[in-house]
């Protein structure tokens, strides 16, 4: 039987076309995105710096990641053109702080608004509004705004550094907010301190954790999907430009091996606007689970050995990432050297021609911006978003990452829930 399911309460909407057998088990799942805005074309012909204002508008929940990808891309064009461009350690650290904030707030919203909410609903329990989670995510955004001026949609990073010039007052405020966020994660999300959480992961006890994260896992268990959602177990982390690794091979991965495949799109007679992103011609999973495995974070590696890339491991990886990002932000705030310059003026963009690439690790995975610039003007611009990797639509022979994870689910509803563990975003996927 073929059924179509509209997936809402994600970023935007998606349609899943399911093929099920007589008992309702999912045999095949097709992923469709039907909205398209043409962001790349909007950028062409403009001053390259205008991209810093336009690309954040690709996505309301990860616009900051797009900003940082753009700024890195432009800086890369400078370097490729043989023009030196310097960024102080301080500016780099501030960019990393604000970017991490975006990841943390995203993960909190996903855990509460999507995972907790949808799993409870399937169990027939009416979940309320997760106000405490929204409050704490707004605090994280406030931490970000202390440096970036606002969240969402700031344009505070420019080639050469950042526009802000913070003092100790901002650092002090930021550390205070961070402490509150850490308390929330400890008391509400985990129900234990971070050491106990690490122990629970290593000793396979995550299911007994008392916080809301434990509730999500138990909901998944009650629904019988906790150990489902297994995909290809191929992971990719392209961020941090220099250090590019494919987990399954541990060889240095290179951006040149990335390709886009538009065979499923409307333009090619298909029925989605989303192009697939491939590495060496294959689907790879990107995002928190990939990052944890590539960084060889102990707890997630242990879970992956036991449960593979199932819902259990994937959900825990996102929660684990909240914890490790908070620690990283604390470290960066504590070691900020405010006496360094925020911004080192580079030569005018109008003197620059060439190509560049900017890669960041966005909440959902590796985000790539590529462009060709001619005397400061954008000639062409290409964006490959994390969701293109994870939500790409293959064939029944070679299914994409989320597609494979859904095949075999006992019902279309369960498959849809597994789909959501990938933190679906349709606005980014199509851009």
């Amino acid at each position, binding site marked *: 039987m073929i059924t179509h399911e509209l997936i809402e309460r994600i970023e935007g909407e998606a349609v899943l076309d399911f093929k099920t057998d007589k008992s309702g088990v999912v045999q095949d799942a097709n992923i469709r995105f039907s909205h398209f805005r043409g962001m790349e074309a909007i950028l062409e012909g403009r001053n390259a710096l205008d991209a810093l204002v336009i690309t954040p508008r690709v996505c309301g929940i990860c616009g900051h990641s797009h900003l940082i990808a753009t700024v890195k891309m432009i800086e890369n064009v400078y370097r490729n053109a043989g023009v030196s461009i310097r960024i102080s350690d301080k500016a780099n650290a501030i960019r990393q702080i604000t970017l991490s904030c975006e990841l943390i707030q995203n993960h909190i919203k996903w855990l509460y608004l999507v995972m907790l909410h949808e799993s409870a609903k399937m169990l027939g329990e009416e979940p309320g509004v997760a106000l405490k989670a929204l409050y704490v995510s*707004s605090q994280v955004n406030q931490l970000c*705004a202390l440096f970036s001026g606002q969240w969402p949609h700031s344009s505070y990073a420019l080639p050469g550094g950042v526009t802000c010039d913070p003092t100790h007052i901002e650092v002090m405020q930021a550390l205070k907010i961070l402490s509150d966020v850490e308390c929330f994660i400890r008391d509400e999300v985990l129900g234990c301190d971070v050491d106990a959480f690490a122990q629970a992961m290593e000793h396979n006890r995550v299911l007994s954790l008392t916080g809301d994260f434990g509730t999500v896992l138990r909901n998944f268990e009650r629904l019988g999907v906790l150990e489902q959602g297994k995909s290809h177990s191929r992971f990719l982390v392209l961020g941090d430009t220099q250090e590019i690794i494919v987990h399954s091979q541990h060889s240095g991965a290179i951006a040149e091996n990335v390709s886009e495949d538009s065979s499923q799109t409307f333009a090619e007679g298909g029925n989605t606007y989303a192009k697939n992103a491939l590495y060496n011609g294959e689907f790879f999973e990107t995002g928190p689970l990939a990052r944890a495995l590539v960084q060889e974070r102990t707890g997630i590696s242990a879970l992956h050995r036991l449960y593979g890339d199932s819902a259990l491991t994937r959900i825990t990886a996102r929660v684990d990432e909240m914890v490790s990002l908070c620690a990283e932000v604390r470290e960066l705030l504590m070691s900020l050297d405010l006496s360094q310059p925020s911004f080192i003026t580079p030569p005018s963009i109008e003197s620059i021609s060439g190509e560049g690439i900017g890669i960041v690790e966005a909440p959902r995975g590796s985000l790539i911006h590529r462009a060709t610039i001619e005397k400061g003007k954008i000639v062409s611009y290409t964006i490959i978003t994390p969701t293109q990797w994870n939500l790409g639509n293959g064939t029944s022979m070679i299914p994409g990452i989320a597609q494979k994870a859904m095949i075999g689910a006992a019902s279309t509803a369960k498959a849809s829930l597994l789909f959501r563990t990938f933190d679906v975003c349709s606005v980014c996927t199509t851009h």
Partner: protein
Amino acid sequence: MLSNPARVKIIWLQGITCNGNTHSFLNDPALGNFLESAEFIHHPLLPCKNTLKELVKKLPKSDILIFEGAYSASFERAGMAMETLLPALASKTSHIISLGSCASFGGIFKEGNPEQISGIVFDKEEEKGPLRAMREKVITLSGCPAHPKWLSFVIDMIVSGKRIALDEYRRPKELYGYLVHNGCLRNEYFEWKVDSHHFGTKEGCLYYAQGCQGPFTHGSCNKILWNEVSSKTRSGTPCVGCTEPTFPKSNLFSTKTYMSIPSEMPLGIPKRSYLALAGAAKSFHIKRLEERLIDDNA
């Protein structure tokens, strides 16, 4: 005054959007209070009564319809084209809020398809959107995104039955009577024509070289701060003019000048008077404003 002010019924519908206004609104620290007096019949992320599919099937009545994102007749939600869905919901509500610059004027996404995409009442400056006949019901909250407090303010005014004074684009004067320039910490530098020579400093005004549009952009960004703590100009970023129908202009990080005078004048100031004033102001050399505010930053 609404019939049942205790529980105002709201539908939040999205056109062509990035979800930025949705996420901006989730930052409102008063969200909890807000939800005590409001009920979402539909919302794209928050728990609500109707799914998108049900919304499209029932086309329910509401007290307030919030529209986020740009309008295009053929754009679909749950399989229904906007040209059918939007007027149907709009005719069954008493108040419409056009939230963000896309819904208000077309915004960024209009750049991708200028012929087909517009705001719901305005298309850039012109009043030729699909809901122009219902303009009296519409309140414009432009901004990319709109500030969460701007939305709370309007809903609160509607719920308590108060009159909202509006400007020519139907934006509340209480929010858009100000210029972004108003309340900017760099105002003294502006007055004495002290340029912020490069980005990344607290000192200097961003109008003379860095493209700041604060002196001619309506918005209370420097009065009602973003995320309670900051604003673009406070963090050293020039205002990009996102509340105006002209958004997005181009060359946003540099100021177009004519004989080293910015070519766009602060709102309401004739060029000739400005030139006289600028000459006088520049003849002062105020040491305090030429130095850094804090010598040892660390």
